[in-house]
């Protein structure tokens, strides 16, 4: 083997060694790379519209309610999702409370709440609707009995209990 052939053979060995090291390094890198996260863990997520107005908030807890330019107190801490109108007023919520074990869904006007859909932890689901003149309608199920209750301002509530099927 000539000197030149010896040098070529030596270079080939070095190149092969470098390739081997490179392959090992890439393999080790891939193995060590963090997995792509499939769960986003945050306390709050705020979605804003093109005007910068917050329209959706997911949070634990959710913020105090903004109503017509002022932020008011909420009774206790609630976690879930809120919807806001184009001026940032809270108009709907789907949440659980730290203080009460119910899960609730609400629809609100600018002045007050008008629809409440609620489930208690042991059952007894309720759907309530009322307007600003205190007319109210309530559907609920309790102790195996369905109820419809309605009320008018200034009058006693009326319970309609459907007759048991025969």
């Amino acid at each position, binding site marked *: 083997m000539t000197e030149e052939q010896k040098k070529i053979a030596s270079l080939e060995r070095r190149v092969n060694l470098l390739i081997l090291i490179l392959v090992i390094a890439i393999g080790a890198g891939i193995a060590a790379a963090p997995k792509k996260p499939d769960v986003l863990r945050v306390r709050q997520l705020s979605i804003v519209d093109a*005007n910068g107005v917050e329209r959706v908030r997911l949070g634990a807890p959710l913020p105090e309610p903004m109503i*017509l330019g002022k932020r*008011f107190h909420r009774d206790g801490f609630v976690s879930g999702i809120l919807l806001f109108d184009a001026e*940032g007023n809270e108009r709907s919520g789907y949440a659980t409370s730290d203080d009460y074990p119910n899960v609730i869904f609400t629809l609100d006007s*600018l002045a007050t709440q008008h629809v409440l859909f609620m489930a208690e932890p042991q059952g007894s689901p309720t759907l309530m609707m009322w307007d600003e003149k205190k007319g109210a309608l309530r559907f609920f199920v309790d102790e195996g009995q369905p109820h419809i209750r309605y009320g008018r301002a200034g009058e006693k509530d009326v319970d309609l209990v459907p007759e048991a099927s025969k």
Partner: protein
Amino acid sequence: MMWLAAGITSIAIAGNEVVSASLDGKVRSKQLIASKDYELYAVTASANRIAFCGNSRDINVGERIFKIPAGWCLALDFSPDGRTLAVGTTEKQVELFDVATGNILRSLDTKWSAAAVTWSPDGKTIATGAYGVAIWNAPDGSLLRNLEAPPGAIHAVVFSRDGARVAAAGPKTAHIWNAATGELLRKIEPEGFVQFVGEKSVIEPITVPLLSLDFSPDGKTLATGGSDRMVRIWDVESGKELRRFEGHHASITAVRFLDAKRLVSGSLDGTIKFWTLK
């Protein structure tokens, strides 16, 4: 465009200048006066200082800071002599601060978040708006009377310049009372509001909250502003709407007469507009 972030929540007249407070924490006149890292809900002015507050226990009075015991501030107003500051809070209280010392002199129990507070021109009584309207004796903090108020949360209360009348803005109506007797004199109910749908506006027979109001200097007319985005002028005696001004693109949170012929309005659209009555 981040118009709501800079939405104006309150205005005050300081000398010849209009001062505004906004949700971006800024107090502005022709220039920036102050900047806070929390939403501001109220500003007021006396002869020689302004005060402002918002989503914080801090009440900014000139260069000083007073503290409310808990919660945050929704409204404030200087007494006519500038010596006492009434602060409406989320803790169902109106705190009366001695401006000289920063100490709380008295607390008025409003039983609900006090979103509106104003002094009578003679400084003897205070009107508060919470879930109802009440008149208080300022010197000792005793409740004089609860007024027959619009149902729901009250957003603004104001006395006429002569102190004879007091008015409040509620979810659907403005009520006007005889301030001395509490007799309800007039209910003002806007008949039609504008419901905004995209670029078009359509008149719909719906009602939305009134957020602000002010008597004209002679007390004969009342200006209101609210979620219909219109400034409306009403004849106090008849309750009839005399005129309306359109131009704001969000709820009007503040209206003030500058004089008999001019008024100013502030809106959550982040603008202040001046209007001329002809």
